[in-house]
C-alpha cells in the first residue's frame, strides 16, 4: 500500500472503531458520504469488526418506536409536539406519559431487566407501580360522577378527537374524526403512566361513538394516563400492542 492509501485506510479504521472525536469524526463521516474509495475502506473495517457483535442477544425495542419512525418517514400523522416547542423528545415523553419520576423508575426497571432472570421481573414491576401510584388509590372509590377528558391531539389534517370518560357509567364517549380514508381499522388505547399501551378495541373513525371500559382497566383511568388512537390492520392489532402509526394522542385530565 502507498503512504496515501495507508493513511486513508488507517483513518477509515479509526472512524469505523469510533475513535475519532469532534471535527475529525465529523470530517470522516462527511468523507464516507462523498468519497467512494474512503467509504469502501470504512465498509471493509465495519464488515470485519461487526462479527464481534454476531453473538449479541437481541433486545426487542418498544413497539411505539416503529410507529414513530414510520410516521417520520412516510409523513403519516405524528403525535403533536408540545406547544412550548420543546421538541421531539418532549413529545415522546408525553406520548409515553412519563413524568420525571416515572421516567427514572422506568429506566431503573429496564436496567434491572437486563441483569436479572425473568422471574424477578414481575416483582420489580410491582415495586415500580407501588412507587408511582398515589396513596389515595388505597382509599375508597373516588367520589361518584368523576369525569375525565382527553383531547387527543391530531395529526396533520384530521381534527382532534375529544374523549370523555364518565366513571359512573364506565364509558368513553368519542367525537371527532380520525384516520378517515386510511386502510385498516382505528384502535383505541389507554396508556397508563410509564407503561405500555393496553387496547380498548377497534373504534369507528368518525361520528359520536362510545366504548365501554372493561372492569380490569377502570383503575387505569386517572390523571397521568393517556389515550391514543393508532391505525391497525383490519380487525385491530394482531400483537396486542400498537403496530401502526399513532393517529391521535392526549393525556387524561379532570374535566
Amino acid at each position, binding site marked *: 500500500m502507498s503512504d496515501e492509501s*495507508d493513511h486513508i*485506510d*488507517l483513518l477509515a*479504521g*479509526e472512524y*469505523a*472503531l*469510533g*475513535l*475519532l*472525536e*469532534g471535527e475529525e*469524526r465529523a470530517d470522516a*463521516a462527511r468523507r464516507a*458520504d462523498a468519497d467512494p474509495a474512503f*467509504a*469502501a475502506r*470504512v*465498509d*471493509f473495517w*465495519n*464488515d*470485519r*469488526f*461487526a*462479527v*464481534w*457483535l*454476531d*453473538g*449479541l*442477544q*437481541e*433486545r*426487542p*425495542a*418498544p413497539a411505539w*418506536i*416503529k410507529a*414513530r*419512525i*414510520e410516521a*417520520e*418517514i*412516510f409523513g403519516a400523522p405524528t403525535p403533536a409536539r408540545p406547544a412550548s416547542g420543546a421538541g421531539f*423528545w418532549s413529545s415522546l415523553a408525553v406520548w409515553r406519559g412519563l413524568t420525571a419520576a416515572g*421516567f427514572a423508575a*422506568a*429506566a431503573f426497571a*429496564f*436496567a434491572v431487566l*437486563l441483569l436479572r432472570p425473568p422471574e424477578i421481573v414481575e416483582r420489580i414491576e410491582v415495586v415500580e407501580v407501588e412507587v408511582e401510584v398515589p396513596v389515595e388509590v388505597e382509599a375508597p372509590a373516588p367520589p361518584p360522577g368523576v369525569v375525565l377528558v382527553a383531547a387527543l391531539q391530531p395529526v396533520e389534517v384530521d381534527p382532534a378527537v375529544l374523549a370523555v370518560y364518565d366513571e359512573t357509567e364506565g364509558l368513553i364517549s368519542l367525537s371527532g374524526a380520525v384516520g378517515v380514508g386510511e386502510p385498516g381499522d382505528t384502535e383505541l388505547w389507554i396508556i397508563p403512566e410509564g407503561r405500555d399501551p393496553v387496547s380498548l378495541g377497534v373504534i369507528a373513525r368518525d361520528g359520536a361513538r362510545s366504548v365501554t371500559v372493561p372492569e380490569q382497566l377502570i383503575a387505569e383511568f386517572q390523571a397521568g394516563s393517556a389515550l391514543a388512537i393508532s391505525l391497525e390492520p383490519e380487525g385491530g392489532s394482531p400483537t396486542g400492542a400498537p403496530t401502526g402509526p399513532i393517529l391521535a394522542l392526549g393525556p387524561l385530565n379532570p374535566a
Partner: protein
Amino acid sequence: MTSAHPRELLQRVADGERAAFSALYDATSGKLFAVCLTVLTSPAEAEEALQETYLKVWRRAGSYDADRASAMSWLIAIARNAAIDIARKRKGVPVDLDAVAELEDDGPSPETAAHAAGEALRLHDCLGELEGEQARIIKRAYMGGLSYSQVAEAAGKPLGTVKSLIRRGLQKLRACLEAA
C-alpha cells in the same frame, strides 16, 4: 412477515418500498437495539439512537454496496454511529468502563464460531497475532464505542501512546486480514 434476506430488503428499501422497510425493521431492530445498548446504557438514549438509525437506513439504503459489506454489518455500523453520536453529545457523563469491560471475551462465541466461521475466526486469528494489549484495546474501543481519549483514560496511558498503539495494531490487522 416476509422471510426475505436483509440484503434483498435493503435493495427494495432503496427503491422506496414501504413494506420492505417495515419487514427490514421487524427482522433487524432487535439486533440493532442491542447494538445501541452496547454503546448507550440509557434505554431512552438507545431508543433515540434506534430511531435515528432507521431514518438513516431509509435515506441511505441506495448507497449500500453488497460487494463491500454484508447487510447486517452495514446496518450495525449505522446503529453504532448513531449511538456514538448521541453518546458524544452528552457532556460530562463519564463512560462506564466497567460495563465495557464486561462485554469483552476471549474469543468468538460458540454461536459465532459455528455460523460465521470464516470472517469471525479470521478476525480472531489476526487479533491473536497482535500484542495482547493492542488486541484488547481495539476490541474494547469497538465494543464500547470509545474515543481515543476515552481509551487513553481507560488504559491509563498518554493519548499519543494509545494512538500509535492502535494505529500499529490496525496496520498489522489489515495486513493479516487481507492475506490470502
